[in-house]
Structure formats: C-alpha cells, structure tokens
C-alpha cells in the first residue's frame, strides 16, 4: 500500500503545482511600482488652453490614472465601464493617452513635427471621447511614451490607483472588469479615502 501511496502523493503534488501554474496569466506581471510614489511628469492635456498637468496636482486626493489610446481596441471595450463609473463621482479619473500617434500613422518618408503630432493627437482623442463618452477629469498626452516607460506600461489599457500622498496602491494591466472594480478597486478606494 505504501508503495503506491508515495508516488500518488508526489503525482498529486505535481498536478496541483501545474494546475496553479497553468491557470495563471503570464501577462499578469506583479508590478514593482505598487507601494512606490507615482513617477512625476508634466504633460500637455487635451485642452490646448490648459496648463501642463502632473501627479503633484492631485495631492490630497485619491485618484485613478487610466492609460488609454484611440487605437487600443481593449480600451474601447473597457471604456463604458469608466463612463458609467464616472457618473457616480466616486473619485477623479485622469486619462493618460499613451502614444496616440503610432509610427504607422505618420506620412510615408516623413516624421511629424512635435507640434503637428500634438495637434493631431488632440483632435483624434477629443473625437473619440466625444463618440464614446468622456469619463476623465482630464486626459494628458504621452506622445513619445516616455511617461509610459516610467509607469512600466506595456499593455494598454492599464489602471493605477494613487493615494492622497501620491503613492501607487494598485495596478491593473489590461481592461478593468466590473467584477474587479467592485471586489478590489472600490474597497481599496474606500479604505484610502478614510485615511
């Protein structure tokens, strides 16, 4: 009996190990940024008249930074969730438009000048928000993706929850789901707001 028990236990151990390993999404990489201050930036917003915006402008508030772009199809799937959520006025959502103008958007043999790029990105983003709804307090434009690198963005959409002291408390890579919003994000928001 013992002869069969040991291999059986070993086998079950292996099965559990593999079951856990295989059911995990390799794209869900634990972010080293959670618990660290949100990297600073000063970026243009969609509003040409508005001053540059940075995370320091949100000091004292719990807020969401949502990375999006008009070329990102998963963002369009996620978007109605944010539009609905923004109507509850629970907390401000700031959009970070990531590399709106892609290399393939540029005319052949020529690169856009930065002001040209900015203008086009503003037009395109504004049109998209007009069409699908605008849940954002404001949206900043990260045209060259430098801020994205600082935030470790590698798959748009991404969502960050930042506390009153400007510390990142949560990060979601990929589209936010209603379940995740209810089960994880909102309880955390309530906790952080109570602090």
């Amino acid at each position: 009996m013992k002869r069969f028990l040991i291999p059986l236990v070993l086998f079950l151990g292996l099965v559990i190990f593999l079951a856990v390993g295989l059911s995990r999404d390799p794209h869900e990489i634990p972010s080293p940024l959670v618990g660290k201050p949100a990297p600073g930036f000063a970026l243009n917003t969609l509003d040409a008249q508005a001053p540059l915006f940075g995370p320091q402008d949100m000091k004292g508030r719990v807020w969401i930074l949502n990375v999006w772009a008009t070329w990102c199809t998963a963002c369009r799937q996620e978007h109605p969730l944010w539009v609905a959520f923004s109507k509850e006025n629970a907390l401000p959502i700031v959009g970070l438009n990531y590399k709106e103008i892609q290399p393939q958007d540029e005319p052949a043999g020529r690169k856009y000048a930065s002001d040209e790029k900015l203008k086009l990105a503003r037009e395109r983003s504004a049109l998209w928000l007009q069409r699908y709804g605008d849940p954002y307090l404001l949206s900043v434009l990260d045209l060259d993706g430098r801020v994205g690198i600082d935030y470790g963005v590698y798959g748009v959409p991404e969502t960050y929850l930042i506390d009153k002291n400007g510390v990142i408390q949560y990060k979601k890579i990929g589209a936010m789901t209603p379940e995740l919003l209810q089960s994880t994000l909102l309880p955390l928001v309530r906790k952080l707001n109570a602090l």
Partner: protein
Amino acid sequence: MIITTRWGKSLGLALLGLLIGWAPLQAKEAVPAPGDPVIEKRLALISEELRCLVCQNESLASSRAELANDLREEVRKLLREDQSDAQIKAYLVMRYGDFVLYRPEVKPLTWVLWFGPFALLLLGLLGLMAYIRERQSVKPAQAPLSEEDRRKVERILKMGDAP
C-alpha cells in the same frame, strides 16, 4: 539537389528572383541603428539579457514590437549617459519588475527559482540512496527460514536428487 530539366532551371531562377525581390523588403524591417558603435555593441549585449514584455519569449534585442523599440532607445540613451549595465538593469526592474530580466537577481524571492532544481536533485539522490540501501539490507542469505520452510526446501532438494 541538382536541377537538370529546363523546367527545373526556370523554377530555380524564379525562386532566386523571389529571394532577391524579397531582400529589400526584409532589409526594411531591420532599422539601421544610428550612432556610436561602442554603444550599439553594449546595447546589443545588454538587450540580449532583457525580456520583451509584449512578446514574452523574445529578448529585447530580437523583438520588433513597438515597446521594445522604445525601450531599446531608452537603454541607448542611458548608455550615452554612461550608466553601468547594473544601473540600466535596475532602471528597468524598477519599472517592469524582475520579470524583465532573463537572469533574475539572487534574492529571497527568487531562491526557489535559483536553488529549487538543485534541491529537487538532492532530494532525488537521497531517495535513490535510501532505496539502494534498503535493497542491500535485505540479503537473501540473511532472511531466516521458518522450520516449516526448511523442511519444504529439503524435501524439494531430495526429490530433485532422486532419479
């Protein structure tokens, strides 16, 4: 393969033509790297060690993904600022986590990764040793026979003797 028929020759020529025709298209993919050869060489070395996060089984050196391009450009910039390889890796780990490194740093969190296989090997060897020792300890000569067995053996041996 030796092409002998005329048909074969023309096919060969057509294939050759296709290859030549393709060459410029292929060349377009690989963007010629600008600038300093020393920096380019270091970039090539360091980006072999870094994982492309979008296409996870490619290194940063081999990936053509947009983000990989940006990150290579970023690493190039850091190299120009004369940062060490360790500094550059730390810069990327701070943003993307240990996952970005193909050879993660040895620290408590990665101990299982680094030493797990050796621990398993040791466990296997210990098991094997225990197994061998157990088998050796049960020598047939040492196994005592019961009185009944002894009689049985003698009877069988005797029967074998008898013609």
